[in-house]
Structures are given as C-alpha cells and as structure tokens.
C-alpha cells in the first residue's frame, strides 16, 4: 500500500481505485491507484519514464478518449461526480480542466486568436469582452508586455518559451479550475524554464495544478505535494519538503537519491 500523507486543504480531485489500460495492452498501465489532489496547490508527479505519471495526468481530462479502445476503471471524483462516467460531458470537463503540453503548441493563427480560441469555442462574441479577457490572460501568463504590440502576428513567430507562456495564457483564459502540466519545460532552455516555473507558482492562487515532470529539482522547486509513481502504482504522496528530505518509502528514497530511474 502506498503511503499517503493527510491533505489539509480541500480536495480538487480524488482518484479512487483507478486503473487504466491502453487499447490492445494486456496489463493496466496504472494500477489500483488512490490519490487526493489538494485544491489551490501544486501537486507534482515524478517517477521513472513508463511509470504511468503522464497516463494518469491525461486521465484527468479524458485525453485518452481521443483514441479508441482505451479503458478506465475506478473513479476520479471532481466536483462531487465521477468524471469517468459514460455520460460525462467531455467538452465541459476539458473547459474546467485545462492542459499544457510537453512542447509549445501554438495554433496556426495570430497571437490574439490563439488566446481567444477557447473563449470563442464557448461562444464569446462580444469584441470588447474578448479583448479584455485575452489581455487579462496574457497578463496572467506574464507575456503581455512582450506581445502587446503584435497581437495580430502569427503565434509561430514567438520563441519557444514565449509560445509556452502563450499556451498557458490560452489555457487560463477560459478560467479552468484545474490545470494539468505535462512536462511543460522539457523542450525549453533554462531561462525560459525558470520563467515558466515562476508562472506556475503564481497561478496556484487561482487554480489547482498537477504537473508531471522528469526533473526532480523542478518538482522540489515548484510543488506543494509530490507523488512518486513506479510501475503504474503510486508509491508515496507527501508534502514536497518532507518527501525529498525524509521519504517514508524505501523505493522513493532510492529514486530521489538516484539509485535508479
């Protein structure tokens, strides 16, 4: 059984006996996993590659549904309901639970249209309102000053770090309650990485954040809670400062001291 620390805060999400099996696979990639996610906090998921951390992350917004044949079992509770149910409205769910990917994914359109994209999908038509929301989102993502004079330019002209902050602006523009970060800095240089990390910490006030990272220092720097996963199981979930200093599980200790992984 996993060692799971008591969460003081309210819970944003609760994973209960969750299992996930990819289409055509014999064994589940995530096994009987239980895990609370604290509200307005940053929870980092770490573990060696193939441990199931990204698979778990992509279950929170049902990204796996894009590809046929994948199978969920158990429950993920979000706002008093199990989001794994067949009747779950995936579009509404994905508006409430946003995602940032391992590479910047600027859409082939202008900077403004990128940020406005999610809003327009929801039916925002009023120009001034759209403009205000886009501007606010760009402020929130700490990129407003860099792009305010070229909102009409193609977003693909921005640097990698700027594009990633643009993607964050695009995600926060629709005011989600949870943001999922899937190794958001793995394609970025150290300076851009520092900027994104700072931004993630600031966003905590407004959203609950789950971040998958292969970089233990990053988890230690930004997160409040850290979950260590291994072979599809959650081994330990603890307060970040405790988990990295006094891990309770032997496996966690071996991983954070670099004995494997």
């Amino acid at each position, binding site marked *: 059984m996993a060692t799971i620390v008591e969460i003081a805060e309210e819970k944003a999400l609760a994973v209960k006996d969750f299992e996930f099996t990819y289409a055509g696979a014999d064994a589940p990639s995530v096994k009987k996993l239980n895990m609370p996610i604290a509200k307005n906090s940053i929870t980092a998921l770490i573990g060696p590659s193939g441990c199931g951390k990204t698979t778990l992350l992509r279950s929170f917004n049902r990204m796996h549904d894009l590809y046929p044949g994948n199978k969920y079992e158990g429950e993920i509770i979000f706002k008093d309901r199990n989001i794994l149910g067949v009747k779950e409205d995936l*579009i*509404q769910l994905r508006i409430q639970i946003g995602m940032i990917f391992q590479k910047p994914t600027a859409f082939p359109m202008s900077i403004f249209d990128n940020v406005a994209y999610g809003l327009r*999908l*929801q*039916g925002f038509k009023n120009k001034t309102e759209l403009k205000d929301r886009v501007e606010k989102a760009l402020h929130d993502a700490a990129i407003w000053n860099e792009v305010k004079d070229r909102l009409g330019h193609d977003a693909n002209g921005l640097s990698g770090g700027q594009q990633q902050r643009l993607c964050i602006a695009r995600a926060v523009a629709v005011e989600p309650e949870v943001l999922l970060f899937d190794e958001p800095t793995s394609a970025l240089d150290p300076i851009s990485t520092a900027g994104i990390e700072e931004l993630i910490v600031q966003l905590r006030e407004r959203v609950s954040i789950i971040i998958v990272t292969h970089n233990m220092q990053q988890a230690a720097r930004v997160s409040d809670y850290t979950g260590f996963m291994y072979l599809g199981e959650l081994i330990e979930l603890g307060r970040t400062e405790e988990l990295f200093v006094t891990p309770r599980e032997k496996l966690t200790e071996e991983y954070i001291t670099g004995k494997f992984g």
Partner: protein
Amino acid sequence: MTHTQKRIFLSKVVMILSTASAAIGIGFLFWILGVLIINGIDALTLTIFTTEGTPPGSGDGGLKHALIGQLLLVFYASLFGVPLGVLAGTYLSEYSQKSKVGEIIRDISDIMMSAPSIVIGAFVYAIVVTPMGHFSGWAGSIALTIIMLPIVLRTTDDMLQLVPSTLREAAFALGAPKYKVITQVVYRGAKAGILTGILLAVARVGGETAPLLFTSFNDNFLNTDMMQPVASLTVTIYNYATSPYEDWQKLGWAAAFILSMFILTLNILGRLILLKKKVK
C-alpha cells in the same frame, strides 16, 4: 441550444457527411473493382492466352498477341528506363550535392512525372514515327521509356539520400574509390527502396494507353518485330471495348482484368518489399 451544444451538433453533422461522402467515394471505387473482377473472370479462359486476335463475330479470339506485345513494349522500356533513371538519380544524390543544377533537374523530373502522357506520344510520333514512315514497337517503347525515366530517377535519388552518410564515409575511409562506394555500398543500402521504385515505375508505364495510340499503334495478330506496329493490352482494351462486337468487348474485359491484376501485383509487391525492410 447553447453555443456548445450547437458545436457538438455541427460536429456530428460534419462527421456524418464525411462518412457518407467517404462511403459514396469508396462505393464507386469498389463498384469499378467489382465490375472489373466479375466481367474479367467471366471472360477469362485458358485459350485466350494461346490464341491471337480473330475477326469480330467469330468468337474464338484470344489475347496472346496483346500479352506478348505488352511484355515486349514494357520490357524494352524498362531495359532503357531503369539503368538511365538509376544513373541519373545517382548523379543527383551522390554528385550534385546541393548544386543549383541538381535542384533544377529534380524539379523538372517532378513536373515530367505529372505531365500528360499523350503529349509524350505526340513527341515520339514526331521524332520516331514520322522519320520511319510508320508506327513501330520501338516508338512505343521509347515513349514508355520517357515516361519511366523521371519516376525511376526521383525514387533512386530519394532512396539514395536515405542511406546514412556514415556508411559512405566508412567505405571511403577504407580507401575505396567513389564509384565503388556507390555501387557496392550505397546501392546495397538502398536496394529495397530502389527496387520498389522500379516496380512502381513498371506498373505505371504498364498501364499507359495514350502514348501508345500513335506510336506502337496496334495489331490484331502476334508481331514481335519491334520495327513494326506491336499490339498492347491497353490499346487492345480501348479498341475492343469501343467496338460494337460483343465477343471483342468480352475480350476487352478479360484484357482489363489481366492488366489490372498485373499492375496491382506489382504495386503490392513493391509495398511488401518496403514493409519487409522496415520490419528488419
């Protein structure tokens, strides 16, 4: 309806329309394939492989003349087209590096690959048929060679460029001269790709009709003299299918079936070779 509901509804409508249009398009294509198979097999007998054409109405004609003629035309076209195409492709990949001329030759070949084949027929008519004074098998083979050349050239070029440069460097490091590096190392590395390209090029020219209409023309009897008009399956299909005689039309279907099977086999073979390479 909320905006989101509208979006979901619209998306469903578009998906249904796409699936329907796919079903229609694919339905048409399978209709053609079905017609070809049913009529072809119906008309297929052993004797059509051993009998030459006969006058319409006699009902005992065969396709021997067209089959052998077709093989002759394609054989000679490949005999010229393959080595020329491979060598020209070799120049592009191994000698021209990033030169301007190399790029131009590449571009020109790309255009020639899509150029109307009937125009090639007109060209060969002017340079071969007119001076000779009559249609001939050679004229047909030359037209097919011209169509084949850019296809073989471009696939060879592409396939050779896929061979890692470390392989070339390793061979050079052993002191091999460039032609040996190319013929013994690079060609070997690109073997499967080049072979597939050649098969597809043969399949492509094997189905050409337009450039043969006024080069190799046609003959209702077996002729293997390339200086004279030579029958081909494709022109025979055209002549028989557009004739008013039922027995000729039937032979036309048999010819169409044989030709399609030949071309599909070459295509599938080419794919399997590439697939096998990838699995390794």
